[in-house]
């Protein structure tokens, strides 16, 4: 028995906390998740991005043990979750997109009830409930019913209910939908705090700025597959081979844009609202030439900046710009 545990410990160090292997799920003829494989490393914040219908929710529901897969495996510390489901669930916290709380109960009773389902009782339950409420910034309203809370407070209570039992892995499915910037900020800083306490986080969202702010690693999903994986910087670097120089020119001077094309690496020039936008290959150092060209014939540059790719650009380039209705 001891040997087995040691083996598993070994696996968990080398293979990450959670490993998804060739996961499949279909509804009728529709393949929602196709041979999906990825790994969640211990202590990281892994963000899962994808347009509607990409298969994110299905994947999350399988990882939460709410949905059976048609094929493939999910390994927790090297063991298939279905062979150790209760042990896995004890270490798992889930913040669903929906507010999974009792509106007619107080914040304290909500957290206490859900934590008690994980085996906590007595003084430990009380202590953990207090801790979770404190963490969510709800200690001063703990006796109030959830129905009297604002949207942001309910979202924070939703998180408190998921973390009170002390999970090692926290799955957060769009936890900041429809809330004010203050609450969003609080939630994002809470996510980082949880990471510093050793909780591994799998986070899905539609908000790119959140991903840029908190992610250690990003998975981009579309049509049930992972189409890109990496850090925010590596995704931006890897996807676009161009950068844009934006030159804001002083009024009254008509710069000849055709001249820019003679500069090495320049791929496109656009003139709009007093700005000249020059697309250039990233690996060609041509800024001096561009400035020289802009200042030729007495043109004066008011401002110049380099526009790099945003995560949104990366996302749209990878998943396409067409609307998703599913």
């Amino acid at each position, binding site marked *: 028995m001891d040997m087995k545990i040691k083996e598993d410990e070994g696996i968990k160090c080398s293979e990450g906390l959670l490993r998804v292997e060739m996961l499949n799920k279909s509804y009728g003829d529709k393949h929602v998740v196709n041979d999906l494989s990825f790994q969640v490393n211990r202590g990281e914040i892994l963000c899962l991005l994808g347009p509607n219908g990409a298969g994110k929710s299905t994947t999350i*529901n399988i990882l*939460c*043990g*709410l*949905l*059976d897969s048609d094929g493939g495996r999910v390994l927790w510390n090297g063991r298939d979750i279905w062979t150790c*489901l*209760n*042990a896995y*669930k*004890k270490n*798992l916290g*889930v913040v*669903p997109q*929906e*507010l*999974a*709380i*009792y*509106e*007619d*109960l107080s914040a304290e009773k909500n957290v206490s*009830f*859900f934590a*008690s*389902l*994980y*085996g906590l009782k007595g003084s430990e339950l009380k202590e953990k409930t207090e801790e979770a409420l404190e963490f969510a910034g709800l200690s001063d309203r703990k006796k109030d019913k959830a129905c009297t809370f604002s949207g942001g407070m309910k979202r924070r209570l939703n998180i408190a*209910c*998921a973390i009170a039992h002390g999970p090692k892995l926290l799955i957060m499915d769009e936890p900041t939908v429809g809330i004010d910037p203050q609450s969003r900020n609080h939630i994002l800083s809470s996510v980082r705090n949880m990471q510093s306490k050793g909780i591994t986080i799998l986070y899905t969202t539609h908000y790119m700025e959140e991903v840029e702010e908190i992610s250690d690693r990003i998975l981009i999903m579309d049509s049930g597959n992972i189409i890109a994986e990496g850090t925010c910087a590596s995704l931006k670097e890897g996807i676009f081979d161009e950068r844009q120089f934006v030159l804001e020119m002083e009024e009254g001077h008509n710069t000849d844009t055709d001249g820019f094309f003679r500069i090495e690496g320049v791929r496109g020039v656009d003139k709009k609202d007093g700005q000249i936008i020059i697309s250039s290959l990233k690996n060609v150092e041509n800024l001096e030439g561009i400035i020289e060209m802009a200042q030729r014939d007495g043109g004066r540059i008011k401002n110049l900046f380099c526009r790099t790719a945003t995560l949104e650009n990366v996302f749209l380039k990878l998943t396409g710009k067409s609307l998703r209705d599913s």
Partner: protein
Amino acid sequence: MRNLWLIAKADFKNLITNPMWVFYATAFPLLLVMIIGYLTKGAYGNGFSSYDYYGVTLIIYSALSSGMTAANAFMEERIKKPNMRIIYAPGNVKSLFLAKIGASFVFSFLAHIVDFAILSLVFGIEVKGVGQLLVLLGLTELFSVTLGITMCCVIKQESMTNQLQSIIINLLAVLGGVLFSLDGFGGTVRKISMISPVKWIVNAAFQIIYDRDSHLLLPAAGFLAGCIIIMTAVCCFTFRKEDCIC
């Protein structure tokens, strides 16, 4: 097992703190008996009043309607979301619907016992064979809440469940002579009336109270217990944790 108890306790608290369900389970049957008893009191004699009749039949009718409370306790929108969090927790997923059955049963049973006590005190309705009556009422309540939960497990929708349940219960209740006795409509109607298990329950109740005879109790109780076991098995077979995804 501990989770089953914890969930049932939470469900019971949810029911007892919801004014609408408390009214539906306690005040509504009383009002029904008072109004219909008053309107029909001329049709009954002094020895056996309209309150004696409707005090029994309408409480049985209310017990049969407890399935709606159960369906709400299981799949009402504001309950469905916390249900999802319960499924995330370790433990047997069957605890979820078993707890709803248990909580709804205790809630409705207690409410109807209180109603019976009030009717007995205020309108002096005849209540004898209390132990046997409690068994009959208890099984009727359990049958009804299990029916509500089973239909939810099969149909997966609370609103549709309640619509269908309402039709079934009212049909069985009318056939069973709960709202008005069908005995005066001739032999054929009386025979049709016997199709309804509600008729057996009502007859068993009157037999216990007025004849101190319990020979109809056994088949009625046996039928109800059999249905409860079958419906619970259907729940186990048809309930899927993914039904809780909101």
